[in-house]
């Protein structure tokens, strides 16, 4: 049997428990990450949805922000959903002035771009590599307003990208951890697997 992938889920605030469950359902070994020490031995990191301003504060307070920026610059696999995608975007619109970015993806992302909670919605979306649609939940979701030249758009809804990848960084504006469909988590785990072959722990 192949050894299990060790995946960290940033657990400062937000939907980390749902991501941990989805990753375990994919067969991964999961660790909740709250400190720099928690990063030891993990092969990829998921940044969940939640409140990006809260996470930003706690990333700075824990010293994780600098360590993560450094890792992502060297291709360490990361998957950000909703607020997690905001954390990864180079340009954050409608954020707070003191909000930090981990700069892993060349994106312009507008916080709450799809509106407040009353505008939150469920929608089937087409992901290019999937044979059937993916049922996506958008919760006070951020809008991707622009993507850099090296960013691959894996799915769009309306005229907006909603699932994107650049190198080993994957991000989406919706919540694959809130449905039982594991296909998007599996895309991430394949990025981790490829990275781990060339960069053993």
């Amino acid at each position, binding site marked *: 049997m192949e050894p299990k992938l060790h995946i960290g889920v940033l657990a400062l605030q*937000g939907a980390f428990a749902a991501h941990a469950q989805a990753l375990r359902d994919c067969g991964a070994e999961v660790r909740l990450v709250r400190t720099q020490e928690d990063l030891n031995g993990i092969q990829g990191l998921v940044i969940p949805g*939640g409140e990006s*301003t*809260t996470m930003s*504060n*706690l990333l700075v307070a824990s010293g994780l922000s600098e360590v993560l920026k450094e890792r992502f610059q060297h291709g360490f696999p990361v998957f950000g959903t909703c607020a997690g995608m905001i954390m990864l975007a180079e340009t954050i619109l409608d954020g707070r002035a003191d909000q930090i970015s981990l700069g892993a993806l060349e994106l312009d992302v507008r916080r709450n771009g799809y509106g407040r909670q*009353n505008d*939150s*919605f469920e929608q*089937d979306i087409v992901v290019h590599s999937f044979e059937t649609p993916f049922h996506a939940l958008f919760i006070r979701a951020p809008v991707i307003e622009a993507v850099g030249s090296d960013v691959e758009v894996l799915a769009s809804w309306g005229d907006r990208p909603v699932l994107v990848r650049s190198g080993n960084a994957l991000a989406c504006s919706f919540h694959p951890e809130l449905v039982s469909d594991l296909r998007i988590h599996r895309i991430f785990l394949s990025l981790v697997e490829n990275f781990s072959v060339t960069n053993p722990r």
Partner: protein
Amino acid sequence: METSSSRSVTGSFPVKRGLAEMLKGGVIMDVVTPEQAKIAEDAGACAVMALERVPADIRRDGGVARMSDPEMIQGIQAAVTIPVMAKARIGHFVEAQILQALGVDFIDESEVLTPADEAHHIDKFKFTTPFVCGATNLGEALRRISEGAAMIRSKGEAGTGNVVEAVRHLRSIFGDIKKIGTADSAELFEWAKRLQAPLSLVQEIAETGQLPVPLFCAGGLATPADAAFAMQLGAHSVFVGSGIFKSDNPALRAKAIVEATTHFMDADVLARVSTAIGAPMTGIGMDEINQRYAERGW
């Protein structure tokens, strides 16, 4: 570009419950002005509860406590980027309609306000906006969920700065969930009767070992240690009401409670953030109060 033709659905239960999931591991702070809301957001609150008076003041002033003035809620919505919650009286579905029209992100059908209906809670399925409701025990929690609540909070005793009631309610809810986990299928009928709760929800708990919606802790939390205590007991997040803005240094205390909620298992962090944050709210003992808000709701 090709896109799916299916229509978007808003206000569904998964969408409502989804926001509750996003608020896990965080601190929701009571605020009465836009300035307080900013302090809360600066400190790392994951949401704010907009209300006219914090529970400690409602308790002191007496009289009828109602939904907040819409102008005040809008002022707070304009001041922050994080979700804004607001309270409606138990059973007062028109206050809830107004809060939904204002675009608040979560409605708290709250026992801290004076109840408007002595027999009925709001039919929360009729709303697009998600609801949170208080509970003192598992039966109450399941009745609220059966009415459409997307989040439950332990009631505790608001405005007291005394954590004892919140702990009683959390322990009662988690204790019964554990017992149901060991019950056989025939015993579940008896549990449903005893809890006055739908059998289907009792059976779901027997299967999953948890409530079908997130369980947050509220009512009397005043210190970083209180927040971590609630989290270690199994709460998913904490509400802090009077505990922040009735303390000596709200900004410092708010930030400390946020860190304590994230690092609730790390005693070194808890010791650090509990140091030099000024005095907490004075608080009151349970034998000193004449109105228990937790008894409101049915």
